[in-house]
C-alpha cells in the first residue's frame, strides 16, 4: 500500500486527494527538513511518513529517524531527545518548538494537508 501511494504521489496525485480516498488508513504526514539534512539523507523535496496515531512531534521524529537513520542526532540529541537549540518546529504558521513533544500536532498536519516544518534558525553568519 505504501509503495502504491508513493507511486501515486510521484505521478502527480495530491496528498489531499489521497488522504481523502484512503479513509481506512493513516494519511502520510508531510515533513520539510533543512537543505543540509536533505543532503545528508540524500533526498529531494518533502518527506512523507506513515505515522501511527497519535501524531506528535515525537512520533513524527521517531518515524523520520527510523526511515533516515543518518539524521539521528541532527535534529534532537541522541539520548535526551532534546531539540537541538538552533532548530525550530513550525506548522500552520505557528511555532511549536516549545510545545511538549507529546502534544498532538494540528489535525491538518496529521491528515497530511499541511506540512510540519523543521527549520534552521537564521543565526550566526560570522563564518
Amino acid at each position: 500500500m505504501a509503495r502504491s501511494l508513493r507511486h501515486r504521489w510521484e505521478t502527480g496525485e495530491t496528498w489531499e486527494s489521497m488522504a481523502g480516498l484512503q479513509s481506512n488508513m493513516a494519511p502520510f504526514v508531510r515533513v520539510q527538513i533543512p537543505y543540509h539534512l536533505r543532503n545528508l539523507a540524500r533526498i529531494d523535496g518533502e518527506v512523507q511518513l506513515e505515522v501511527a496515531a497519535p501524531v506528535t512531534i515525537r512520533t513524527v521524529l521517531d518515524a523520520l529517524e527510523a526511515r533516515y537513520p543518518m539524521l539521528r542526532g541532527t535534529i534532537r540529541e541522541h539520548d535526551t531527545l532534546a531539540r537541538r537549540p538552533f532548530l525550530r518546529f513550525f506548522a500552520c504558521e505557528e511555532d511549536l518548538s516549545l510545545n511538549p513533544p507529546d502534544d498532538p500536532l494540528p489535525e491538518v498536519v496529521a491528515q497530511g494537508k499541511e506540512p510540519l516544518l523543521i527549520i534552521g534558525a537564521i543565526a550566526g553568519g560570522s563564518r
Partner: protein
Amino acid sequence: MSKVRVLVGTRKGAFILTSDGKRDKWEVSGPFFAGWEIYHMKGSPVDPDRIYASQTSGWFGQILQASTDGGKTWFQPGVKLEEAGPPAFPAKASNRFVYDTSDATGKPLTTHQWYDGTQHPWEFKRVWHIEPSLTDAGTVYAGVEDAALFRSTDGGESWHELPGLRGHGTGPDWQPGAGGMCLHSVILDPSNPQRIYIAISAAGAFRTDDGGATWKPINKGLYSKHIPNPTAEIGHCVHHIAMNPRRPGVLFMQKHWDVMRSDDAGDNWTKISGNLPTDFGFVIDVHSHEPETVYVVPIKSDSEHFPLDGKLRVYRSRTGGNEWEPLTNGLPQSDCYVNVLRDAMAVDTLDECGVYFGTTGGQVYVSSDAGDTWSAIVHDLPAVLSVEVQTLA
C-alpha cells in the same frame, strides 16, 4: 610513481588535492559535505583508501563520515541507505559520543572549570581530531570538545570514551581556551602501541603508557605567565604537538606562546623559541626524514592572529630548535593577514620531504623541497581548518 593526496578540512566543506610525486600539477576535488565545517580528515596508515572525516555544524551537530575508496564516495559508518521497506534503527550511531561517567570503567566526572571559575558540565560539541590506528584499519581515535578521547574499534560505527584521561585527577581543573576546551592533538607511538600522547587547550599535554587506561600530565618545564601558577601541572594552553615517527621519544610543541621540545617523551620540556621573531603560533611539524628539522609559522600575538608585518613566513630549524631561518620564497611578503590553525600543517614522506599548510584565507601551500620554495595549490578555498597528507605508492 608515488602520489600524494592532501586532505583539506575547511569551514565550508572538504577538499582533496592530488598530485604525482613531483607535486607541481594538482587535481582538486570537492567540496565534499558543502556548507559544513570539516574540522579534520585523516586516512588510515593500514588502508590509505579508508579516510575518516569530522563533519560538524552549529545547527545539526556532529556527523562522522568515512570513505573506503580514497575519498571518492562517503558514508556514515553503520548507516545504510534504505530504498524502501521496513525502517530500522541502526544498532550503533557513528555520531554518538557519550561521556563515560560509570563507576565501573571510570570515575563519575561530570564537571570541569568554566571561564568564571565555577564548575560546568561536560558537554560534547564536536570532533576536532581523528587519529586512525597505526596497526588496525578499523580502530580510530577521536579527540573531542569538551575535551575527551574516544576510540572506535568498528570503523567508526560506535565510540567509547577512554575515561581514564578525564578521570585521572586534574579533570575538574581543566578549563576552555578561547576556542573551547578541545582535545586537538593525538599522537600514537609506533614503537610502543601502549603509548599515546594527547594535548588539550587549555589543560596541557598528557600521556598514557597502558593503552589509554591511565594518564598523567606531561607539562613539566612549561611556563605560562597568564595562569595563577605559571608552572602548574595543568592549565597550559598547548596549541599543538608533533613527533617524527622515527624518533618517538622526541616531541615538539607550539604552546600559546613558546615553542618547546622534549627529549624524554614529554616528561620534561625545554624552550626552543631561540631567534623566532615571535613565538606565538598554532602549527608545528617535523621533517619526515630529518628529526631535528622543525617547522613553525609565527603569528604576531594572541591578540592579533596574523603574521608579523603582513609577511607569511614559515620558520625552519635544522638544529632541533633555537636557531630558526625564515622561509619566504613563494609566500606573500606583504599585506598578508591570514592565520594558520593548529591542525593545518602536514608533511609527506617522499624522498624530498614535502611540507604543506593551509590558511584562514583559503590558500593551501606546498613545498616539495622541504621548505626552500613554496607555491599555492589553491588560492580561494574557505578558511582552512586542517591539512593532512597521504603518501601513496
